[in-house]
């Protein structure tokens, strides 16, 4: 049974109309709207500064406006983000944070500053290692970002503000995680598409609006059968979001992932006495990804995830021209396959995934798994 509730429709609407979300929020608040490219930005800091954090998920491919500025072999997310800025799709934002996850995003920050001259543009650098030295650095980086946000919004961020924001976002993250468990057990009721739609909406809607929506979904009586082909998905983002629908159509149930708009968004911040240190610790202990060598290697994380969630395989969902992902891929694949875990590699571009070809490959993968 597809979720019949208003909440899912509201989530979809938010994805299609972030400008409307920003306008509605502005009507009741004084602070700025701060956009962020969706790679593990600490939204709690933005919220605590009295601003609205909004993840940037422009729809469609739309890379043509980037052609004058970026080569065709630069990854499609960077091209799409810049196009969105050049053609005025992000005018709802008062400022932007670009996480420095790779060389392209590092270059994009400077190019964005040069071309767009925004009144607020900040980098956010997550240390690449899981060594001890990374933690104090991360706390310092978060302090810097907090102070910059405070200066821009005109509101000094006190520990109490940040603690309240963490608590609020934790409530969202915890509910998303509960819904994920529901999805795993009742995939016909909460489909892949529904769950990933809700996660993405949590990047756009204010947490105060997101919470009741999630409660509404959670209030629905769990029903429907378990089943489907349980798989883990690894990559950056469930992009395009329609891929989640293709997974549904192929009978795949995502039972675990390491995606930014997936399980990474469910990771709560420890509610400690020093909220900034807690944010740092959450980031430091975050799920491994292509950009960071965390305390636990990504290959170990994925293999353990497959075992814990009783998945039967892994889908790698990688953007074309993403060197960070591609340089890690053969090693990850081999590590998993040596442990008897089949894998499927799907290459995507922002906004498009060649639905027919993906559906065919998913079907072939599924058939292969049935014979495994």
């Amino acid at each position: 049974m597809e979720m019949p509730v208003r909440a899912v429709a509201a989530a979809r609407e938010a994805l299609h109309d972030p400008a409307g979300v920003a306008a509605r929020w502005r009507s009741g608040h004084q602070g700025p709207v701060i956009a962020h490219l969706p790679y593990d930005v600490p939204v709690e800091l933005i919220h605590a500064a009295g601003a609205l954090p909004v993840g940037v998920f422009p729809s469609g491919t739309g890379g043509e406006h980037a052609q004058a500025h970026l080569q065709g072999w630069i990854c499609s997310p960077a091209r799409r983000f810049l196009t969105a800025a050049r053609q005025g799709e992000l005018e709802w934002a008062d400022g932007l944070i670009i996480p420095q996850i790779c060389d392209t995003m590092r270059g994009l920050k400077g190019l964005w500053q040069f071309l767009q001259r925004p009144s607020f543009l900040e980098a956010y650098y997550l240390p690449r290692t899981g060594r001890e030295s990374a933690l104090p650095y991360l706390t310092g980086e978060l302090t810097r970002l907090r102070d910059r946000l405070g200066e821009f919004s005109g509101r000094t961020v006190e520990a109490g503000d940040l603690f309240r924001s963490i608590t609020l976002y934790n409530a969202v993250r915890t509910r998303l995680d509960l819904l994920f468990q529901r999805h795993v057990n009742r995939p016909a009721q909460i489909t892949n598409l529904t769950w990933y739609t809700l996660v993405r909406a949590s990047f756009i809607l204010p947490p105060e609006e997101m919470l009741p929506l999630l409660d509404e979904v959670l209030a629905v009586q769990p029903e429907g059968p378990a089943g489907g082909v349980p798989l883990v998905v690894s990559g950056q983002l469930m992009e395009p979001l329609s891929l989640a629908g293709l997974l549904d159509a192929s009978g795949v149930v995502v039972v675990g992932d390491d995606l930014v708009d997936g399980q990474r968004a469910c990771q709560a911040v420890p509610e400690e006495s020093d909220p900034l240190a807690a944010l740092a610790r959450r980031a430091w202990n975050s799920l491994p990804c292509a950009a960071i060598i965390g305390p636990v290697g990504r290959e170990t994380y994925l293999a353990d995830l497959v075992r814990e969630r009783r998945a039967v395989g892994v889908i790698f969902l990688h953007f074309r021209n993403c060197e960070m992902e591609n340089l890690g891929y053969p090693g990850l694949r081999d590590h998993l396959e040596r442990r008897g875990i089949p894998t499927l590699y799907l290459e995507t571009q922002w906004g498009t995934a060649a639905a027919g070809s993906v559906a065919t490959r998913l079907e072939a993968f599924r058939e292969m798994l049935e014979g495994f």
Partner: protein
Amino acid sequence: MAGIPLPSAGRLKDILAAGQAQGADAPVAWVTAVFPAELIRAMGFYPYYPENFGAVAAAKKVTPALSRAAEARGYEADLCGYARAGLGDCLAAVHPVGSLPKPTVILGANNQCSTLARWFEAAARDFGVPYFLLDFPPVFGSLGEPVQSYLHAQMLELAAFLALNGGVPLDTDRLAGIIDLANEACDLWRQILALARLRPAPFGFIDACVYMAPIVTLRGTPAAVEYYRLLKAELLTLAGRGYAVVPGERYKVYWDHIPVWPRLRWAADLFAAHGVLVATSQYAEAWYHRFDSSRPLESLAESYALAFVNRDFEERLRQKQVLMANYGVDGFVLLSNRSCKATSVGLYDKQRELTRRTGLPGVVLEADMADLAFFDEDQLTERLELFFARLGPGQAKDL
């Protein structure tokens, strides 16, 4: 490209071979090119530079062949050509430029690019050896906290890592001595590069590409100092006789970053045929460092953090302008290097902005430093000839 008539021409190979021989008994540390190799040497490791291997493979035009082995394993053909050659060589049955030596440890830094760090991480996994990433946050504006403390802490972690994995204990006096040698070699290197300011010049960027191996791979050794002393003396002698590496030199230009290694001779000949000397490049200048041996670990970390690729858009523009002004160039060439996202993002706008700021003509070339699959000679020749036609008397404006 006849090459500069240097009496010491044969010495370069000898020095590099001697450097390799020195490492025969030492544990091997694979290391990225802009890494504090001074510390590695001080702790008894032989630093080996797989990027050099990538450049040699490119110059010998075997990158596509090595790349095929990497692509067969699942690496994309769009990855950095050095990475494809290095990863491919470890998988290939034949080794057209010799094999990469098996490392004891692999040391990566991301101050040049994240690609190198990921390539080295993948290689460490394949070899089953310990990997250490020296993590350099990008420097926006000036270097400050919390980055400095983070870098210093990592240098201590690096020293501990090296000691744990076959290195000798850190002796700061020994390190200071190596740093002094590195400083001396860097000074000589910069003095040699500066000879390209002469009109006519006995030496230019393309020559620097030929003679840069010691400053990259032997920094901190007496051999590098000795070699560059000799090279400088010989070049000064040639300059005194009015020797011009580009006969009839009419113009000087700036070249941004790495050359197209497999067509270095083609580029040299084409530029020379039009009386154009490629006088300077951030790539050649990047090997200049000034370390403070009284605070060695901190100084190493800070200097390597300021590698130009690790700087912001505006600072990179400023550095290009400074070089253009210092060398009195008449135009500039920017290489949109498919292998190098770190230097290529924003290049089209940099071209427009540099022309706006300096009044000089510029051109963007689409190619790859290593892979001729992305090299269209006719198109590049046409673009360059159009560019040469726009060169006129004039010098870059000072900042």
